[in-house]
């Protein structure tokens, strides 16, 4: 058990809900002085809400926060800084146009008669960086340095300005390369040695095992548990994040699509060495008519990046993509639609749904875009299409003139699906189509995907729920560290996939 003096932060039974969702339920979180504590969980697990509660961005409905043995209410981000809790975000919140020294000390800079004392400013900043063994010219603009250095400057600012006791690093490594990451880890270890407690949020398993002392896993807003890193095998960690014990995963029903594929048929979509520097290592992929390929992998493994390349949102800088034997030369979503490729993006709130438009308008969007704006679809035709899909997909709504913002998550998802189906694509890429919707709706969407495949459409199905991937895919591609880790046929077991995700073949 923890000694009481060991804990610098003790969050007990924290609950927070947003309209319709319980983001956190009775979560306990304890942080010791001088430890690196990894906070793990898939999207929607409650990591960011927990951090927002700690930094005063959100206020919990229940629960207490004890800092250094005293109960505190964190009122605002400024207040949390004053309490000694500093956060360094993935997007570095510094200004690239002013010097490194200013970025560290601005707002606190040494002055003489209202004039900035540049020499002392630079000396102080250089000394602060030196403490972490970073030796750079602090008078140069921050933008001249790499992201890794910028990240460390952000950390130094947090330590200098706020004299932080707790440092939260939110996905600090996602834009760093291997060298930069190890540089950051050195800094983290040095800080740990001085007694600073570090909360390390990341989705890179390797890094967690490299640097953290303990791991707390959250899932669906609940605490799964806190573990010593050394005592938690990697496979166990993944199972805990995904919410299935290994035994459970073994017994997943194999109710997958049973129809056999004509093996000889030519692929409709073929990627050869398709890659994008920094986000996706070159990858090969073949998709046949009537086939469902499942893309499994943890968050950040390169799943969505692949989807974006296939749909032409991003332009690959390596490899080729052929649709129906014709190589794609211009990468744009519009072009892809013309070729019969459609993408249902991951974050429906940000990238998919237009809340202030009606169901009909949302469904018509993509179709109209493909038609070109000059050829306006007659309104009667729009209603016809919209109503057909509402019926087909079982969207629960009084009328197609309802604003999409008023629908439940599952129904919103169906509206997006309808939008792409209306363009009658032959290749459909679904990125997390069942996230955050209830079990019934999930099953319906899965069934729908299988029906579409039966009609001869090719589908790329991305999901972090293994069961789902196993149930409906004929082939499963496992992604890890922004590359294809393995490809399996339909007889693969969950155990194998988890081991591949964990990095041992």
């Amino acid at each position, binding site marked *: 058990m923890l000694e009481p003096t060991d804990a610098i932060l003790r969050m007990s039974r924290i609950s927070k809900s947003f309209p319709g969702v319980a983001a956190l339920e009775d979560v306990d979180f304890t942080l010791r002085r001088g430890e690196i504590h990894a906070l793990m969980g898939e999207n929607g697990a409650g990591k960011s809400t927990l951090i927002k509660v700690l930094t005063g961005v959100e206020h919990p409905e229940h629960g207490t926060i004890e800092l250094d043995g005293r109960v505190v209410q964190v009122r605002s981000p400024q207040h949390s800084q004053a309490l000694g809790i500093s956060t360094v975000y993935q997007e570095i*919140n510094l200004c690239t146009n*002013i010097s490194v020294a200013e970025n560290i000390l*601005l*707002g606190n*800079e040494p*002055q003489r008669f209202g004039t900035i004392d540049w020499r002392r400013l630079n000396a102080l900043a250089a000394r602060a960086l030196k403490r972490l063994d970073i030796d750079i010219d602090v008078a140069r603009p921050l933008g001249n340095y790499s992201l890794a250095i910028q990240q460390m400057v952000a950390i130094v600012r947090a330590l200098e*300005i706020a004299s932080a006791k707790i440092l939260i690093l939110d996905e600090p490594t996602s834009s760093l390369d291997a060298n930069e990451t190890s540089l950051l880890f050195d800094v983290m270890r040095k800080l740990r040695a001085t007694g600073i407690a570090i909360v390390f949020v990341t989705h890179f398993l390797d890094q967690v095992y490299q640097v953290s002392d303990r791991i707390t896993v959250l899932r669906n807003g609940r605490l799964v548990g806190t573990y010593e890193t050394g005592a938690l095998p990697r496979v166990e960690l993944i199972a805990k994040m995904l919410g299935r014990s290994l035994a459970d995963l073994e017994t997943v029903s194999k109710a997958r699509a049973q129809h056999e594929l004509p093996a000889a048929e030519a692929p409709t979509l073929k990627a050869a060495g398709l890659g994008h520097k920094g986000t996706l290592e070159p990858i090969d992929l073949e998709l046949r008519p009537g086939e469902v390929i499942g893309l499994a992998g943890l968050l950040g493994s390169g799943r969505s990046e692949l989807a974006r390349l296939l749909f032409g949102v991003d332009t690959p800088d390596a490899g080729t993509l052929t649709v129906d034997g014709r190589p794609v030369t211009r990468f744009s979503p519009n072009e892809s639609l013309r070729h019969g490729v459609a993408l249902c993006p991951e974050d429906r709130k940000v990238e998919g749904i237009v809340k202030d438009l009606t169901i009909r308008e949302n469904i018509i969007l993509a179709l109209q875009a493909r038609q070109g704006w000059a050829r306006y679809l007659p309104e009667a035709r729009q209603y016809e299409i919209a109503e057909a899909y509402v019926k087909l997909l079982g969207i629960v709504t009084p009328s197609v003139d309802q604003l999409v913002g008023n629908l439940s998550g599952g129904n919103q998802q169906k509206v997006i699906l309808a939008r792409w189906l209306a363009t009658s694509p032959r290749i459909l890429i679904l990125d997390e189509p069942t996230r955050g919707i209830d079990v019934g709706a999930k099953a319906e969407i899965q069934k729908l995907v299988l029906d579409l495949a039966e009609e001869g459409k090719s589908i790329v199905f991305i999901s972090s729920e293994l069961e789902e991937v196993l149930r409906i895919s004929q082939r499963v591609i496992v992604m890890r560290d922004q590359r294809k880790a393995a490809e399996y046929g339909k007889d693969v077991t969950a155990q194998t996939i988890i081991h591949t995700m964990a990095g041992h073949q």
Partner: protein
Amino acid sequence: MTQRTKLFLLNHGPLLTTVAIFLLAYVIGGQLYPAMQKPQVFFNLFINNGSLLIVSIGMTFVILTGGIDLSVASVIALTTVASAVLLQNGLPPLVVMPLMLLMGIAFGAVLGGFIHFLKVQPFVVTLMGSFFARGMAYIISLTSVTIKDGFYNDLALTPIYIPFVPNAYVYSYALVGPVLFLVTIYLAFFTRFGRTVYAIGNNEQSARLMGLPVGRTKISVYAFSGFCSALAGIVWSIALLSGYGRYAPSMELDAIASVVMGGTMLTGGVGNPVGTLFGVLINGTIVSLLQFNGTLSSWWTRIGVGALTLVFIGIQSLFYVRRKTSG
């Protein structure tokens, strides 16, 4: 090239280009029209462009925060009319001038308040401010009002000879701009206010998260621009010894062009008053060139400034892209 010089060139490229173009234009002018070689022609740049320099300096700070101030020309007009009428009614000049400056500061602060607290686009707020100020100028007087005040007359007509340069002079009001310029150099590089302006222009969200006084600084910047506009208005009324609502037509656009030619990016965060000084000088030099030529329409000034501004925006983007990739 060593890494250091390369970085210096990359960081100061747009400014160096501005200076080079000014020198080039001036030297070419001197070759074409020998009369232009006289030192007085150079000092005339400050006499003729005193107001433009002042509002451009205020505009520089606004643009550095990523904003824009379209009200400056109208505030000049309003200031000339208001001070002319007040002087006509017997108010002493030493009361009128501070009063005008206060009006400018208050006017700018109100615009800044709208921009910051109500989150309205600077473009819209200052455009409305421009309508308001220009309208007020005409409400005060529909016709031109002459200034007969003795003090103003003295300021307007007493030449100050430049030491070491024979026969070269400026009028007192032409010194306001250069003095203000020195003050703003200090403001921009040696005060927390100045550095905060740069930080906001780079990324307002970051500046806020860094705990910098974003709201106060933004409002101050517009108040400062208002102050500069009123100051430019006073200079204008001294130079022409009159006030009129029609004065300084669309000078806000000349000011913006000068700032941009000086290497300040409209997106904020990059640039400085030194560049603006040269931007204004380039503007003035083009006018001088046309005057010496004598046969060309004065509208060529606009065309020249427009073309140069476009060229500069192109150069800036180029440098910006380079810096991004080489950083």
